[in-house]
């Protein structure tokens, strides 16, 4: 069974209120999951209908003004083209929204070790208070200390698998965790479990070990 995005996360994605790290991670799962993709399209359709809900505000311009603008205003370069500038390196298990952010293959990334069998690669340049955005690679058998989240944590599994008290998560799955969850995932695949993680606030660890590790892991 596949682990999907929750309705409330899909709705936040459809209405455009998430940061770009969360969007990237969600787009990875949507690439491999037609079920969630359909639900996202449904949420957009609801968004479209919501236009009819509010009274129209008065516009300063008329339709003919816009047609006149067409002749004078140059075609904007949509910023959507900017982040495509880095060609995506095609590699197994990495959907394009993530591949575009990687300078090289997963194997060649300058991973930083933060414990035996644990390494990470930081993708986020955003301030830490807005949350983390990183790749984690955990060797078979490793276990994260029990921690909970102040807000929301999304995990997209790229390869390998892990289990926690919620279930078994494998490549393509998403773990959509909210503040209530405490979890301590352990890797149960015979290859490293590589995952993409985005949070919208720092994680709080329960144990002393967790507290010490936290500044290094940064999640």
């Amino acid at each position: 069974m596949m682990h999907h995005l929750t309705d409330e996360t899909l709705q936040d994605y459809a209405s455009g209120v998430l940061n770009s790290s969360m969007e990237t991670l969600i787009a990875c799962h949507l690439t491999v999951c037609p079920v969630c993709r359909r639900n996202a399209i449904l949420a957009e359709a609801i968004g479209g209908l919501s236009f009819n809900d509010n009274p129209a505000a008065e516009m300063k311009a008329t339709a003919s003004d816009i047609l006149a603008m067409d002749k004078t205003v140059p075609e904007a370069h949509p910023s959507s083209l900017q982040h495509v500038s880095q060609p995506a390196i095609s590699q197994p298990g990495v959907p394009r929204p993530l591949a575009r952010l990687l300078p090289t293959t997963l194997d060649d990334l300058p991973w930083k070790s933060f414990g035996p069998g644990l390494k990470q690669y930081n993708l986020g340049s955003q301030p830490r208070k807005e949350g983390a955005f990183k790749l984690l690679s955990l060797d078979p058998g490793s276990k994260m200390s029990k921690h909970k989240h102040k807000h929301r944590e999304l995990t997209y599994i790229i390869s390998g698998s892990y289990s926690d008290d919620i279930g078994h998560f494998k490549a393509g799955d998403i773990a959509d965790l909210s503040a209530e969850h405490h979890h301590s995932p352990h890797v149960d695949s015979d290859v490293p479990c590589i995952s993409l993680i985005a949070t919208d606030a720092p994680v709080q660890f329960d144990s002393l070990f967790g507290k010490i590790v936290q500044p290094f892991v940064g999640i």
Partner: protein
Amino acid sequence: MDAPLLQKAEGPSEATQALNQRMRDNLVAIGKNRDEQAFSDFYNHFAGRVKSFLIGKGLTEAVADELSQEIMLIVWRRAESYNPDKAAASTWLFTIARNRRIDYLRSNARIEVDLDDEMLEVDEDDHMTHEAQVDLTQQSVRLEQALLKLPQEQRQVMHLSFFRGKSHGAIAQWLDLPIGTVKSRIRLAMQSIRTEIMTAESE
């Protein structure tokens, strides 16, 4: 604090369906023939609504006005890319407005699925079956019906999400409700909408 989706006394009428159809035809006519009349009709219906959508999401009146004009210019220039078999006109416009707002607010664009991705997993429902494709305007009427049937408290969270630009966490704060309550309202709402649409399709 009540601002439900589609607060209409009567249900979605033939008039709504006719409007959906007309807006869709307008987009097609703009895309195919650069039809200025069609653009004018589309603009007069939607521009002010896009503007109030942007104001509802927290932009100032002046910025909302300017962005709405830009969004309408995008409509005029990109109408060719509108596929009437894939989305209602309002859905297409919604995604443009949402993405333009994101562009305005931050330096990188919205991130979406790349439909050319080798990893793209397609299933049969993706290329909608012919019956489903036949009438998208019909489908949006069903969707409207499903929304109207929602209990007030569920419509309220849907409305806040789309119109006030709030994440479900912020909605919980705004309404002074536990976050779990907001989540379950969203889930219940989406569940009944899906059920409603599927039932209507199999009839």
